């Protein structure tokens, strides 16, 4: 995570601009309601009827269609364009400078916006049902980003930024832009439109998840919070002497963590508590909700965005191949006591556990979270474990 003045570093947001997570809480459900394997399987099937888990070009039959004019509104107003309230969003939307936004100039990005809206994508993206180990409450987490719109946008400006800075193409990811130069203003507008798209994408997926919950469990999911972890944001910086100034905060693989009293939380629901930080771990070991503490100022008002990878994808597929049966069995038969209820197995939507995403390729989430508590940066409020996982596939 990096903080700059007057400069925007594109790698600080990367290709999947505003990748992030959203949590639904399902107050009517308890661990015992989701213990049954077949019910969790049925829920996965219902979600996949409504949420694209691939490229999005094959839209599931019950996925709502989106008009081009709605896309234009979403690119400018994010979650607000689809009626989501600001209090459940890190940023309901980020303002886009109309003078600098020209979607038609990056046709490859614009062409993907409509077909892929409401899709999870691949890699480590997912929809996951989880249970709180303490009280057995049921939650659903969605992890995804700006899809092809964001990727193509980022790629376009890496090339243009490299040309401006005199960098060779194979070093284009090192480019950077001054906020006040024309290309910088253009990138900022497009970057923010991608961020708006990602936020709306997560909330549209949520609506499909909510329908599936109602169909299978006759329960209503409520959005708890949504947050990005691949984003450059212009924020108020609180300096060690207590004064403030504005700067660009680049959280590439980091999550914003404003504690209680942060100037940018004034007037929001989170003013006196700090906002929640949503941290996914792995498909085996679950996730957590944290609340920032005063020590967050020492870490640039940021926490981690996950567990952190210990094994690259290619290496995982090679080296774990001979253990694939064991890994599948582990996911099928792992037993956990969650809220006093023993739940066996984690139901998945793929025939076999994706080796490059299994629990063995990530650091221990609790070890990572313990660092934050040790330094007074954040406290763990909820520790969740997965019971059903829908992996995005491309």
């Amino acid at each position, binding site marked *: *995570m*990096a*903080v*700059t*003045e*007057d*400069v925007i*570093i594109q*790698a*600080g947001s*990367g290709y999947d601009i505003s990748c992030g997570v959203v949590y639904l809480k399902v107050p009517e459900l308890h661990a015992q309601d989701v213990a049954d394997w077949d019910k969790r399987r049925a829920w996965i099937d219902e979600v996949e009827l409504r949420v694209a888990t691939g490229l999005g070009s094959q839209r599931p039959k019950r996925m709502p269609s989106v008009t081009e004019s709605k896309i234009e509104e979403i690119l400018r107003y994010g979650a607000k364009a689809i009626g989501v309230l600001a209090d459940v969003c890190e940023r309901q939307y980020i303002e886009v400078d109309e003078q600098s936004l020209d979607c038609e100039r990056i046709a490859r990005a614009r062409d993907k916006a409509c077909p892929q809206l409401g899709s999870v994508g691949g890699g480590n993206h997912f929809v996951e049902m989880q249970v709180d180990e303490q009280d057995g409450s049921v939650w659903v987490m969605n992890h995804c980003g700006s899809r092809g719109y964001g990727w193509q946008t980022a790629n376009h400006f890496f090339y243009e930024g490299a040309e401006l800075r005199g960098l060779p193409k*194979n*070093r*284009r*990811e*090192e480019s*950077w832009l*001054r906020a006040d130069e024309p290309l910088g203003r253009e990138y900022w507008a497009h970057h923010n439109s991608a961020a708006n798209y990602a936020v709306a994408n997560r909330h549209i997926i949520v609506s499909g998840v909510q329908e599936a919950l109602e169909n299978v469990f006759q329960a209503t999911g409520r959005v708890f919070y949504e947050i990005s972890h691949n984003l450059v944001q212009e924020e108020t*910086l609180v300096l060690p002497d207590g004064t403030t100034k504005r*700067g*660009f905060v680049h959280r*590439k*693989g*980091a999550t914003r963590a404003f504690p209680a009293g942060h100037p940018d939380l004034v007037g929001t629901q989170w003013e006196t508590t700090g906002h929640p930080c949503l941290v996914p771990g792995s498909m085996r070991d679950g996730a957590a909700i944290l609340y920032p503490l005063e020590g967050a100022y*020492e*870490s*640039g008002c*940021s*926490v*981690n*965005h*996950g*567990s*952190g*990878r*210990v094994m*690259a*994808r290619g290496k995982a597929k090679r080296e774990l191949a001979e253990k694939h049966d064991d890994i599948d069995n582990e996911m099928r038969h792992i037993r956990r006591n969650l809220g006093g209820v023993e739940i066996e197995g984690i139901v998945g939507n793929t025939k076999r556990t994706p080796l490059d995403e299994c629990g063995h390729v990530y*650091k221990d989430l609790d*070890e*990572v979270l*313990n*660092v*934050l508590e*040790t*330094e007074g*940066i954040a406290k763990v409020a909820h520790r969740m474990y997965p019971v059903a996982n829908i992996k995005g596939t491309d």
Partner: protein
Amino acid sequence: MAFLHEVQKVSQAHYVLPKIGGMRTEVHAFLSDALFAQTDEALWRQAAQAASYPGMIGMYMQPDCHVTESRSAAWL
């Protein structure tokens, strides 16, 4: 220039790479001893490179940090 051996432990789970070479700011890293032991020169070199960008005034690594698979290794 090597970076790993320049890293200093400042508290139980807080390490700092001081500003050296072309770095414009020091790098703060929040790591347990065990997580720090898993870091390597490549990670700290990548951090130092990132800390050298124009306009940089603060750099913080979280406990889930790892060297990216990006070809240019421009960022963490």
